[in-house]
């Protein structure tokens, strides 16, 4: 499990060969779905570009978005993040880890019946603000929470 421990560092350290891999044609947009995979967004290296790719460049901060996540994550490879949006007409929620080399981690499009709530787990390379970007009735809103990352274990 030495290698297991090393892989932990790898995971939290550098898991972002995606741009290169994308160029190498390893990413195929999932055409089966209505929304095409946001290649530009997932490959942008800066928070601003990621927000732009979502159309959320001029989003306003909202108290009606609640991010549930640990203040300190024991394991950067598995950071639980839940986002609840009480904004009426919430149709999309994105999770962005500001200091990750590729900040945009996930986008959730909510259709009929889906509530303004999603929960998942992401990899974080370092302590950073985690942004929730919510699209409601075509307008964009954000909230953020800092998550401190420590590498676990004695090794």
């Amino acid at each position, binding site marked *: *499990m030495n*290698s*297991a*421990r*090393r*892989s*932990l560092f790898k995971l939290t350290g550098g898991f972002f060969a995606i741009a290169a891999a994308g160029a190498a044609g390893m990413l195929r947009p999932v055409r089966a779905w209505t929304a095409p995979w946001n290649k530009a967004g997932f490959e942008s290296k800066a928070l601003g570009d990621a927000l732009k790719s979502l159309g959320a460049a001029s989003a306003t901060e909202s108290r009606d978005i609640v991010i*549930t*996540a*640990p*203040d*300190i*994550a*024991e*394991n950067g*490879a*598995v*950071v*639980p993040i*839940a986002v609840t949006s009480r904004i009426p007409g919430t149709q999309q929620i994105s999770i962005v880890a500001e200091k990750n080399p590729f900040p945009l981690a996930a986008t959730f499009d909510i259709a009929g019946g889906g509530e303004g709530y999603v*929960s998942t*787990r992401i990899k974080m390379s370092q302590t950073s603000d985690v942004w929730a970007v919510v699209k409601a009735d075509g307008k964009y809103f954000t909230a953020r929470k800092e998550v*401190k990352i*420590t590498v*676990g*274990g*004695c*090794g």
Partner: protein
Amino acid sequence: MPVARSGNVVLAVVCVATWGTAPAQSDDPLAVGRKMLAEDNPGELWIEQGKTLFHQKRGPKNASLEQCNFGLGPGKLDGATAQLPRYFPDTDRVQDLESRLVTCMVQLQGFNRDDIVKRAISPAGSNGSDVEALALYITSRSNGMKMNVSLSHQKEYDMYKAGEYLFYRRSGQTDFACVQCHGEANKRIRLQDLVHMTDKKGMQEVVSTWPAYRGGHFVVRTMQWRLYDCFWQMRLPELKYASDASIALITYLHYQGNGVVIKVPGFKR
């Protein structure tokens, strides 16, 4: 013995002077994450696999494990883990779940013991080993039941006492035994909580949650792995899988944990 006495005074001063700056144990900033991760435990994905492996005809003898006797009779799995380790007349050994599993895979299915033992602890990045999945499935059949290890056979008494002896036996370049890290409440290695194993509640917390999903490894790990990994961290030689030393420690742990309700898979950072 003036030197040591004055030394102890110095220690007292150090503690008084500095405990205040130690991070508070209350309102644990890690708690939220731990709860969220434990609520939806990927370890559950391995229970079905273990069940399939248990009933599948496998190995050179093309046999299932349905005739394997974990102490309650052939194929009786409900509550089996809760009463292990125990003495088995056929092998004339005290065995824990994993060593018994190996015995059955060798005797019933004809697998080679060395091969099983070599693969028992799965490598990084893999989807886990057969033994890890089987141990989880079989232990899950004790979920909701109380740990109830009994000492009746002489070899069970011997194993318990040997386990206790090993728990306190210091050696190696860190001068560690188990108790150096697990002898007090609210202690941590870096941010990782250390279970308080000289306390019944703490001991129960351990023995009721293995096999567990190990977040950093992305697979299910077992109690045999937990012990192996402790010796690795102590800079000591490698603990042989399913060896008497490992079974002695597990006998000591489980007997102390008696009465706790088993709930697996656990989730460990």
